[in-house]
């Protein structure tokens, strides 16, 4: 009897969370899927999906989005892994970690505007280039500046999980590998990296998925020279008012994200088995 009561109380505690999930996660996704089956005139149709998969514009845009998300993730990973490793070696890792997390406390839009100031014709970056004799260059509205700023914004989300997995790593593995005559590179590639792979995977998920649907940065920093699916969704909802097509792109993005989650998680099982 008592146990039953405790059970019912714990389900009662669960209600707010369930309501939250149902109201703000499941219901919106269902609405999105529902909307995607309506044409611009409000008729039920599969035409939105047909248009999406038969139009070279949308397919190109999808490729573009995936390609840029990949580049951003790669850049973030290349910077974050060494950072997380060095962080673990420092005396006060928590302090350094705080400094890395700090930029996430600042609004994304403010950071974007700060970069506009830095990269503009008369900005600090160009002043420096002129100072060392290279002369001002067009930095804003280039692919480089877009990937740079996007990577800057995503770095904390990559550093954190990698740092966690490195700090949890038992150092005796590394020592053993050195004792047994492995070079530094072998220690890294055969021992350290495989053992910290779960952190890397979590970092990739945390960075790649939001990067797929970036839209504000594409305009502010990329000057709409980089077009991603996020841009198209914004346009369909705000200008064309073609909510059906906008929802369709949203659904495709969700499916793409599920596939990525599935791929990265599937890999985990395989390597675990491989390690055994």
């Amino acid at each position, binding site marked *: 009897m008592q146990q039953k*009561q405790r*059970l*019912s109380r714990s*389900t*009662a505690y669960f*209600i*707010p969370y369930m*309501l939250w999930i149902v109201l703000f996660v499941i219901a919106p996704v269902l609405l999105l899927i529902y909307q995607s089956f309506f044409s*611009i*005139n409000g008729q039920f149709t599969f035409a939105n999906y047909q248009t999406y998969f038969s139009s070279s*514009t949308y397919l*190109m*845009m999808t490729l*573009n989005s995936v390609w840029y998300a990949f580049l951003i993730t790669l850049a973030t990973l290349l910077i974050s892994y060494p950072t997380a490793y060095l962080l673990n070696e420092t005396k006060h890792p928590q302090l350094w970690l705080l400094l890395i997390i700090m930029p996430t406390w600042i609004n994304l839009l403010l950071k974007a505007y700060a970069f*506009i100031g830095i990269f*503009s*014709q*008369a900005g600090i970056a160009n002043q420096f280039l002129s100072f060392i004799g290279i002369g001002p260059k*067009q930095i*804003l*509205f280039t692919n480089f500046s877009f990937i740079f700023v996007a990577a800057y914004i995503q770095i904390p989300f990559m550093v954190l999980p990698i740092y966690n997995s490195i700090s949890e790593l038992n150092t005796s593995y590394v020592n053993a590998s050195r004792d047994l005559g492995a070079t530094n590179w072998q220690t890294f590639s055969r021992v350290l990296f495989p053992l910290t792979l779960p952190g890397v995977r979590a970092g990739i998920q945390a960075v790649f998925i939001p990067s797929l649907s970036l839209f504000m940065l594409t*305009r*502010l920093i990329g*000057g*709409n*020279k980089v*077009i991603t699916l996020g*841009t*198209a969704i914004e*346009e*369909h909802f*705000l*200008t*064309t*008012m*073609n909510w059906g*097509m906008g929802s369709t792109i949203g659904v495709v993005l969700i499916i793409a994200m599920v596939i990525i989650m599935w791929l990265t998680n599937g890999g985990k099982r395989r390597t675990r088995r491989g390690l055994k």
Partner: protein
Amino acid sequence: MKKLFSIILGLLVVCGLLAFGAQKLQTSSGSTGKKVLNLYTWGDYIDPSLLTKFQKETGYHVNVETFDSNEAMYTKIKQGGTSYDLTVPSDYMIEKMKKANLLLPLDKSKLTGMSNYDSRFMNLDFDRHNRYSVPYFWGTLGIIYNDKYVKPGSINHWNDLWQTKYRNKIMLIDSARDVMGFALASMNQSLNTTDPATLLAARNKLNKLSPNVKAVVADEIKMYMIQNEAAVAVDWSGEASEMLASNSHLHYVVPSEGSNLWFDNLVIPKTAKHFKAIYAFLNFMSEPKNAAQNAEYIGYATPNKAAKALLPKAIRTDKQFYPDDNTIKHLQIYQDLSPAKVGLYNDRYLEFKMHH
């Protein structure tokens, strides 16, 4: 049983809270008191000192709420739950709201000062006989250039933008209708064409422009042009007037072969409640002195002929913002196109943006 009860109780509490929250949200957008007027307008689109003056003269307090696009305003009014008394949509949006039965006709017997308005800006296609709207500001779409990088007078027509010397120097406003519009104007086509082949030709012409395009941006264009970031930009006259006020190297040109002519007019949405205040405000804004003060503050062109006469000569005779009749003759107002046609414009525009 107890479990079921607690679940139901929890659900009821949450539903109650949500209903209360919704109620709260609805009443907060637009106050419902007696001596008020709820004005729903673009950001920074009225001289605040006029609002104080209006309150002093009539006793009505004006609550101002702002929107940043016609579409956002449309959605909010259509959804209801607001009590806006007056709003300021652009021409095509007035047509659209009219079709959707979201506007109340004006009671002409209560309006004074309608004769102050320039007859060229009355009785237009989007609102015949001004049944629903009173002109507020008007303007054009044109080219802004910086005389540090461009010889003054060397840009007069849309086709000048395609010259190779402007490689990577032009900024465009991120708006499908306007970018497609100036491409159509450069080909001497109607800005309201719905012919797929013509729109395709316009896109092909825009693709040829893309080496010259430095960026396609929105409001930030103003900041960039003021900071001398780009040599040339395509933007609306209202934005241009703000840029010119902050950077004396900038100039604005309306190509004489044709461009867009836009209006922002005051209308009464269906959500209106305070009719006495509404007509007091409309009459107040029609008074030449007030309209002139507002035009000087905002920097847009006033459709009020009597008010224009009160403006300083430098503003009144400025061809950049009050173009001559010959140019005005070639300007076109956007019509409200069917969703499918708007989609056509948007698809071609998206394709142009993808092309680089």
